[in-house]
């Protein structure tokens, strides 16, 4: 049973799955957290009328949002191509 178990599993692919899942989770989480933090900070700075810093954080929030959108599109591509 144990021999059949070892033989039936593609351990190389399995290792790639584990690494890919962990890396993708880290990147997705960072992207979402970046959107939350930069978006919140931008709103706070705009409310405090600190416009230059507010504008920079707005740009950062936009870039984070683009990265997040990229992840979502990548996820959809992965699903459609399997």
């Amino acid at each position, binding site marked *: 049973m144990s021999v059949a178990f070892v033989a039936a599993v593609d351990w190389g692919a399995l290792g790639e799955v584990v690494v890919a899942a962990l890396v*993708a989770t880290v990147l*997705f*989480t960072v992207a979402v957290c970046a959107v939350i933090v930069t978006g919140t900070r931008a*709103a706070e700075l705009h409310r405090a009328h600190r416009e230059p810093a507010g504008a920079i954080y707005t740009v950062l929030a936009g870039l984070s949002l683009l990265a997040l959108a990229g992840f979502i599109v990548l996820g959809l591509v992965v699903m459609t191509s399997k």
Partner: protein
Amino acid sequence: VNGDLLLVVVIATALTFDFTNGFHDTANVVATSISTRAMTPRFAVTYAAILNFAGAFISLQVAATVAQGLVESDAVTMNILFAGLIGAIAWNLVTWYYGLPSSSSHALLGGMVGAVFFAAGSGAVKFDGVIEKVLVPALISPVLAALAAGVALAIAYGITARHSPSPMRRGFKAGQIVSGGLLALSHGTNDGQKTMGVMTLALIANGNISADHFHVPTWVVVSAASAIALGTYTGGWRIINTMGNRIHKMDEAQGFAAQSAGAVSILAASHYGFPLSTTHTISGAVIGSGAAKRLSAVRWGVAGNILVAWILTFPASACTAGLVYAFTRIFGTGAAGPLVVCVLCLAGLAFVLIRRPVPATAAGAEA
């Protein structure tokens, strides 16, 4: 006429299974969002139902795997398919009754393998396929998702720790709409197709489709997508309660981490052709997000019950399917046996539902 009647019975049973699949597995997608109040219960199940429906149209690769990967297609008859589906439906209903998030996919695969084993012997079962597509994913998916959820939670807490909590909580709630959407879509893609695979096998067994030119008819895709979406919309509140509240009480960051890790793990595994169970993955992620904050936050007794249900899913569905097959054979190879089983199942289900008290959680969620 007898063959066509049997085909209708098998297709109807497959769609019933698909409904229970959506009903049973809704919790995987919506429980964390409801628990953290990122979405209202009704919005969450509607959102999940729509994305489950859409997800079922995305790919047909899993349908082909179910139809061809675990048993010898030549050995499959309509009565075997029927018995396999009844075995899976029975297990789904039992685990739903006890509020346990077990894998509908493993129930279906167990039912199919059990019915084929009882009917055609061990030679008709592809045991390598069972190991690769059932056993290994069952072991890998919860561990991987728990690990990923723990890492995601550590990152989320680390990045947001120095900011005021209220906007961060709102941000994670919004993040859950994204991660929950990806999870619902991947669930529809994976699980909707499994029923499509069974329905296509029935059409092949009845001679409507040639086994040499495997394809899934459009009406099969549309009906399977509709059934799983309808089941999802109906919502299995008992399992939602277990996933959202009974394993551990989640905060917004934990809910986000669990859903993100679950969705990303499923997608990464799909990309490499490893079919992970959505139930095992998201359950592992929920446990991981609790344990990463504090080990004692997880109710390990509840987690243990879930683990026992996972271990029992495949053999229990297989045995039930085998018994159902043996029973239908008493009436011959035609439609009479499956029809008798359907009548008995409907009568039994009606009896249970009439006697069942409405759970407080369901009433609260509906209100």
